[in-house]
């Protein structure tokens, strides 16, 4: 199992460690629900150094990538970031990614569990193009600060860059804890305002400690993957391996905002299949809520009468909504908000109400 440069820090903090995507990661430092509330109300610090990070340079980087990913890379303004996917020919998703368009490079952030497969896929499909592809996962650390006090916390350790000038889904470079040229983006996976930062992994512990100290006055806590999963689910964000996979298409997952059929983008892998699905979808990813005691959990059958109509993708106890929530794919006929369905718990039934996603949006 791989370890991030902060592994011993997590252990010292008393984190419970679990395997995630081939990495030994902190799932929680304290009660998960407290960690969720801390991010919703204050600020939280996440070690995301397990996520895969690739840098593409070379004259063809944009045109070549536009044949592989669903995003229209050529139309992303410099210093902006877009969500997108890597799909197979049949439209099934191999991964979902963030695409950072730089002046001289394109930077991709991918899921830890898919890093190797993405690398192989990119290499195969970039062959022949004037592109150099570099895996920066080991040399860069990745941390996230999320929550309303993340601006104030991060600004304490960042010189020569006014964080308020970085818009949502935009990035900049600044001097962080004395490290020059650190990539800082206003992105995240929690539904809160916040930042993700990328810097020399050899400096991980020093930067982590500086952020813990800078955030102390705001009530900052380290946040594990358990709370991260609840936060993203409340915010209606998909997780690879749950809402999206090789056998699910991103159209029915509601991810059309990350897919470009613009004719100037040209053809790309999966375009035809996804165009057909878009014209004639049969299922939809919806939210489900329940007033019952049990939380929806991955794999639970979703029932209408005696008929199984779907399956739960993710579920959580939501402290923000004070309800148990989940996601499920259901046929379009059952996708209207307010539709009553049930989940099957080894023969027992519990009522679910279909809800639009997201469950939670921050007031801006």
């Amino acid at each position, binding site marked *: 199992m791989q370890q991030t440069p902060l592994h011993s820090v997590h252990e010292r903090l008393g984190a419970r460690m679990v395997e995630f995507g081939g990495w030994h990661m902190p799932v929680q430092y304290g*009660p998960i629900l407290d960690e969720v509330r801390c991010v919703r109300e204050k600020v939280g610090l996440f070690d995301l150094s397990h996520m895969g990070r690739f840098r593409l340079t070379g004259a063809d980087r944009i045109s070549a990538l536009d044949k592989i990913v669903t995003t229209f890379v050529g139309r992303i303004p410099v210093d902006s970031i877009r969500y997108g996917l890597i799909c197979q020919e049949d439209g099934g998703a191999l991964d979902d990614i963030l695409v950072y368009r730089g002046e001289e490079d394109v930077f991709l952030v991918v899921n830890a569990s898919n890093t190797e497969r993405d690398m192989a896929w990119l290499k195969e499909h970039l062959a022949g193009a004037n592109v150099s592809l570099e895996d920066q996962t080991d040399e860069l650390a990745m941390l996230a600060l999320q929550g309303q006090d993340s601006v104030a916390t991060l600004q304490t350790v960042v010189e020569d860059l006014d964080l308020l000038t970085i818009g949502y889904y935009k990035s900049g470079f600044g001097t962080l804890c004395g490290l020059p040229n650190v990539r800082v983006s206003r992105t995240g996976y929690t539904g809160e305002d916040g930042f993700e930062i990328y810097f020399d992994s050899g400096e991980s512990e020093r930067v982590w400690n500086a952020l813990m100290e800078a955030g102390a006055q705001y009530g900052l806590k380290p946040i594990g993957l358990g709370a991260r999963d609840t936060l993203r689910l409340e915010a209606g964000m998909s997780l690879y391996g749950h809402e999206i996979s090789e056998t699910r298409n991103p159209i029915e997952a509601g991810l059309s905002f990350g897919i470009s059929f613009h004719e100037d983008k040209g053809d790309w892998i999966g375009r035809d299949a996804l165009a057909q699905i878009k014209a004639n979808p049969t299922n939809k990813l919806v939210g489900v809520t329940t007033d019952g005691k049990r939380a929806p959990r991955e794999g639970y059958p979703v029932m209408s009468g005696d008929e199984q109509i779907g399956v739960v993708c993710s579920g959580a106890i939501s402290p923000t909504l004070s309800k148990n929530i989940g996601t499920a794919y259901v046929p379009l006929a059952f996708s209207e908000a307010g539709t009553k369905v049930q989940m099957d718990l080894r023969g027992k039934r519990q009522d679910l109400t279909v809800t639009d996603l997201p469950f939670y949006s921050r007031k801006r």
Partner: protein
Amino acid sequence: MRPDDRRYATTHEWAKIDGDSVIIGITDFAIDELCNGNEGDLVYCDLPEVGRMVEIGETFGEIESVKAVSDLQAPITGEVVEVNPVIEDHLQVLAEDTWGKGWMVRIRSKAPNLDHMLDAAAYEEHVAAAH
């Protein structure tokens, strides 16, 4: 050391002979795996109805924490004759008094025999290997 007046399953249930029946619970290790020392993370425990017949190895219930659901497996075959009424509304009893008031069900068996289960020393080794 855990109590040696009972036997343990590799799936972290404990079983204690009491007359012609067997009392079943789950171990401190199982509870810690579920809630990592935060007993508030335990949210629900689904236990069977009195009168239900269970087979050895069969799932007789589920326990749920904020992040996970675990099956409860019957270490013996028999009839559920009593269910701990305290657990439904007071899950914390599982952590507070794991070996006593935190029992879950009582199963009546024709010839209660727990020889197939681990004794306290063997369970200790089993748990150590799991870490």
